[in-house]
């Protein structure tokens, strides 16, 4: 039971770390954004997991049901998802602009170009 009880969280941690790894290791700007999304989505799962109540149902009031899952994390995550997509949109827009300014979306290329005509 001990192991099973935390299995969900372990998977979340694993996913988070994959996401974070992609962000840090990638030199490609768009892949970084993908990684960020991965990272954030796994946090969403963390929230939703802790709202789950064994044997509960979706938090929509129905006559006769008393065992609901926790709606609060759902609300928070609805907000967080929106925030996530907003960040993604802005990040990608920047990446697109960077591509047209530098002709590349590789971090290394950009750094090199900045270096060559730096102040």
């Amino acid at each position, binding site marked *: 039971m001990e192991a099973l*009880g*935390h299995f*969900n*969280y372990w998977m979340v*941690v694993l*996913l*988070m*770390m*994959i996401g*974070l*790894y*992609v962000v*840090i*290791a*990638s030199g*490609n700007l*768009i*892949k970084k*954004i*993908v*990684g960020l*999304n*991965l990272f954030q*989505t796994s946090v*969403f799962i963390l929230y*939703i997991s*802790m*709202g*789950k*109540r*064994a044997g*509960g*149902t*979706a*938090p*929509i*009031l129905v006559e006769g049901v008393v065992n609901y*899952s*926790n*709606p*609060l*994390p*759902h*609300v928070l995550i*609805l907000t967080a*998802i*929106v*925030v*996530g*997509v*907003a*960040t993604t*949109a*802005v990040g990608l*827009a920047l990446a*697109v*602009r960077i*591509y*047209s300014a530098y002709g*590349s979306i590789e971090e290394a290329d950009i750094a090199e170009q900045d270096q060559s005509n730096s102040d």
Partner: protein
Amino acid sequence: MTGLAIAGLNKLFSAVMLFGIYSLLSAALFVALDAVDVAFTEAAVGAGISTILMLGALALTTSRQRQISWHRHGSAIAAVSVTGAVLLYGTADMPMFGDPLVPALTYVVPRYLEQSGSEIGIPNIVTSVLASYRGYDTLGEVTVIFTAAVAVAGRLGRYRAGEDGPVPGAGMAHHLILRVVTKLLLPMILLFALYVQFHGDYGPGGGFQAGVIFAAGFILYGLVFGLESVRKVVPPSVIRILCASGLLLYAGVGVVSLLLGGSFLDYDVLAEDPVSGQHLGIFLVELGVGITVAAAMISLFYAYAAYKGDTA
């Protein structure tokens, strides 16, 4: 899981597609965890909007990435494993998964579960909490989306009239079957969006999901018939006004309740009795959310679709 595959892939296109699948999978997981509203949103946003945005960005840039140096791998793995280890360490004292007696389920939440029926009067507790108890968070959320729309428009868009050059891509308008199917689909999508918008009180859904679906309809239209035709239907300037007015509607409800003697966003004072006041308030703010989200999504689509090269 899928995530691992993303990390390993060099082809950005596949990575993005896999990300879409991953999002869908997590949406399924959310359903299993009773979070239907979240699942709905994740499916629409994570799998839908985000993936489309990423594809759009890829189309505008390049779709291959270079090999990562081993040095980078090393430092990334080090950073990640430390963070991961800390988190795993933290899980040790976490409550069991699904345990009904944890503080998260016994402290604040019972009031929502037990009294939202009488205080707010709508069955979907998620909507009650979202739009009323924590309505201010949602106002913030709408502001975030608005900010993002402004930001993307600011970086990519070329909104002012008279500057729009010829827009690329006549879409797939020559494709007869697609055209017919789209024309058939479109009303249904829009209708569904409206349903989701106004049914949010009872079932899963609400302004946000509705807005996304609504926007999806237009985006589909745009993809098939070309950007130019969709811009004729809904000009960018209208979108901008809508985007702002949704947010203004939401905040305006707050200001009205304030003027009527309540707190900011206190819907009780909007009508004679509190419950109908709550109904009205939630209806209005959900509408505001829907309008802003739809307009924001469409403006994102415009911005990406119309972008072609440097407009600094």
